[in-house]
């Protein structure tokens, strides 16, 4: 005999539950947690290197660096002065998930932290579905990509709170139209804070760092 039962179960509810625990734990200590997402090669690791140069003395920063393979990014960030950098090798998975983050957070001393970066695997699709317990997502794109990226990957741009457009030193060398890129991003998400910068030359890195200072201060209120 055939029978139908309604279950109404969120597919990623296990992940969501763990993420909620992470969020609660970090918030109790007033730690700002950011989930950094982008395509491969947009400059997530470069942005974190620059951030460490400027803010490392001001704040206690920890970084979880996710990659499918290698801990190269984590090593780069340690060379840039990162005191608490932990790699996560996902071994094939194209995104971080809450379980991986819990495991790493157990290994680090978060008591004095102000800021936790979770550098996701370079991918604009899957990471948008997996909550890591962050306060907000920051999405990066760069001027060597298409300016229609927000329209191609709307979910990620919709779920992010800020957009960093990197490699502005290369503007003019490709057909990337930065105003159009911003317009597309705002079409998908009118609430995005947008910061244009260059990790290579350092231009506007101060704007990004000011944005971080504001968010850290808000978190501590």
């Amino acid at each position: 005999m055939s029978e139908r039962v309604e279950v109404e179960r969120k597919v990623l509810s296990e992940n969501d539950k763990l993420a909620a625990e992470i969020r609660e734990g970090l918030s109790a200590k007033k730690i700002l947690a950011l989930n950094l997402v982008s395509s491969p090669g947009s400059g997530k690791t470069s942005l974190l290197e620059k951030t460490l140069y400027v803010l490392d003395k001001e704040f206690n920063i920890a970084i979880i660096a996710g990659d499918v393979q290698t801990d190269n990014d984590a090593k780069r960030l340690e060379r840039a002065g990162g005191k608490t950098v932990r790699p996560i090798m996902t071994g094939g998975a194209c995104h971080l998930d809450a379980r991986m983050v819990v495991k790493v957070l157990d290994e680090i001393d978060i008591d004095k932290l102000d800021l936790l970066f979770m550098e996701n695997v370079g991918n604009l699709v899957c990471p948008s579905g997996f909550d890591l317990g962050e306060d907000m997502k920051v999405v990066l794109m760069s001027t060597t990509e298409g300016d229609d990226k927000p329209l191609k990957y709307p979910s990620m741009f919709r779920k992010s709170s800020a957009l960093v457009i990197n490699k502005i030193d290369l503007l003019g060398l490709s057909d990337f139209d930065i105003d159009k890129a911003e317009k597309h991003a705002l079409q998908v998400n009118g609430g995005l804070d947008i910061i244009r910068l260059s990790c290579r030359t350092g231009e506007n890195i101060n704007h990004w760092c000011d944005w971080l200072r504001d968010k850290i201060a808000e978190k501590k209120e």
Partner: protein
Amino acid sequence: MKVAQEIISFSEKEMHERGFAALTEIGVRVGALSCIDPESLRFAFDVLKKETGLSQAVLNIERVTIEARCISCGTEFEVADYVFICPKCGANDVEVQKGEELVIAYLTGDR
């Protein structure tokens, strides 16, 4: 892949707990903002189910379009082409009400 795995492991568990001999259908709702391509999900599900007790189950995917509400003027509208701008007043401050879901809605099985 991960999503298909989650669907299978949850459904298998439910099948045993609810005393079904086999499941014939698994109904899921996939929002346009969930980042899941229904055809890829179906493919992954069909590959993975072979190794499990769900080998006869069919995945029934209902696609959910995005619906939003304008925070400024209250207009409710369907979001086409991912443009989150109120068609009435032009504000871009809108909240999504539908379209983010990724839900196992129902299971159909034989006793």
